[in-house]
């Protein structure tokens, strides 16, 4: 196995390296904190001739995604990235590549939404994108940010998939952190990413109409076709991660478990907090608590089967949401509850919301959540926002 070399890389630069190695053709992005370093590095690579791609400068994220849609329809390998308010401005156009089946790849450096104005990390921006019809996955560290970006291109462009894919990295916690990771050789990545050819690439010799009007007599059929295709992307995602593991030595799964073999209590998290949560699990294990950890790696399509399997012996599931759905609670918690409803009547699911707008989630924070959840059903609230000053 060719493992590559160990380097110190900022998360943003690691993603730029991945985009360079897959040899993207078109990049269109608008800089926004905390995603800026990705765009800057890619623009630098193109200017220095390290990457032979077209960088389309735009005046907004709305235009960035519009340019990506056009470039992808022309058959190009396309990349963009954004964060927080930028994803909100892009929102309208995000539904277009998924319904047109254009395999645009994007990275989101997750950031809180205003107001108050915040450039710091949480998952408010991700949770506003739940319905966009993109394949979505979460990275836990810089290695995964790199690996999953590589995988996103291969998954998205697979002829049996052809859906856009988005990799979520926590803003600042990954985007601005330098840490050690393995950077594979260019050739190994190039071998892993097949030549790409879009079946309906715009071609004057073979004209087609894309993005047509969908009157009521055809819209439902179009949506059904899109949904059936989206749900059937799962085997390809699994296959790609399997092959990635065989090639690079790092395996990914839709739901990843840590110390779950004999756990009666499980924490559930997403994103960069996963490894800190592992340390919390280690400490609670030493205190004699049967705690394990579940991380959702794949967010869309939602990993129903894997989640049900992961929690099959769990009595208490503690879900940490890094976003608040006003008037509802934690969006991940409500999705997890709906995925397990009717399947596990003997399990309690308790939701917490924390880490909003760049607030740290500490080992102590995880311990608090578990201890507090053990007090259930005395808890009357549907959810609790942790670490808030009175």
């Amino acid at each position, binding site marked *: 196995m060719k493992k590559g070399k160990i380097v110190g890389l900022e998360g943003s630069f690691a993603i730029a390296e991945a985009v360079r190695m897959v040899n993207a053709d078109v990049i269109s992005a608008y800089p926004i904190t905390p995603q800026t370093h990705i765009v800057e590095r890619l623009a630098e690579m193109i200017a220095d001739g390290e990457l032979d791609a077209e960088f389309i400068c735009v005046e907004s994220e709305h235009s960035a995604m519009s340019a990506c849609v056009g470039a992808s329809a022309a058959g190009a390998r396309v990349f963009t990235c954004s964060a927080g308010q930028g994803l909100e401005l892009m929102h309208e156009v995000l539904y277009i590549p998924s*319904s*047109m*089946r*254009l395999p645009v790849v994007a990275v989101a450096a997750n950031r809180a939404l205003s107001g108050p104005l915040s450039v710091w990390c949480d998952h408010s921006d991700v949770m506003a994108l739940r319905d966009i019809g993109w394949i979505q996955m979460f990275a836990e560290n810089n290695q995964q940010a790199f690996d999953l970006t590589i995988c996103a291109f291969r998954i998205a462009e697979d002829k049996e998939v*052809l859906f856009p894919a988005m990799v979520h990295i926590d803003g600042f916690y990954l985007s601005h952190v330098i840490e050690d990771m393995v950077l594979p050789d260019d050739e190994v990545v190039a071998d892993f990413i097949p030549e790409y050819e879009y*079946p*309906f690439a715009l071609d004057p010799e073979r*004209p*087609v*109409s*894309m993005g*047509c009007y*969908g009157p009521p*007599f*055809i819209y*439902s*059929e*179009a949506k*059904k*076709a899109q949904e*059936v295709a989206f749900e059937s992307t799962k085997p390809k995602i699994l296959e790609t991660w399997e092959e990635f593991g065989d090639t690079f030595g790092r395996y990914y799964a839709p739901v990843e478990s840590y110390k779950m073999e004999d756990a009666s209590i499980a924490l559930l998290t997403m994103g960069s907090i996963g490894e800190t949560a592992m340390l919390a699990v280690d400490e609670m294990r030493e205190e004699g608590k049967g705690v394990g950890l579940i991380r959702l790696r794949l967010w869309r399509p939602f990993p129903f089967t894997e989640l049900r399997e992961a929690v099959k012996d769990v009595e208490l599931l503690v879900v940490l949401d890094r976003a608040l759905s006003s008037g509802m609670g934690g969006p991940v918690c409500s999705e997890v509850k709906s995925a397990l409803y009717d399947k596990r009547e003997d399990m309690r699911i308790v939701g917490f919301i924390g880490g909003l707008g760049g607030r740290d989630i500490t080992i102590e924070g995880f311990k608090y959540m578990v201890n507090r959840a053990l007090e259930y059903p005395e808890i009357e609230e549907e959810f609790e926002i942790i670490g808030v000053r009175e």
Partner: protein
Amino acid sequence: MSAKQKGWKDLELGCVVTEPGSASSTKTGEWRSERPVRDNTKCIKCGICYIYCPEACINEDEEGYFEADLYYCKGCGICAHECPSSAITMIEEEEE
């Protein structure tokens, strides 16, 4: 199979339409309640109607007159309104 009969499995990837120019098969002439009628004694063959027609369905014939293609003409009346010699009048479809 017409688009209205297609089931979800019949649709192309991303709902693309693979038959180019398929809009030209739509008979927009059915939308018309009035049609333009030309009086050749007044027509000066200037082609103003041809220029103004928003449907681009007026074509020059062998004699140099400009004739609306009633397969597409929606009966908007712009040609009649713009005609400098008042050679075009709009008459109701039911009239002969």
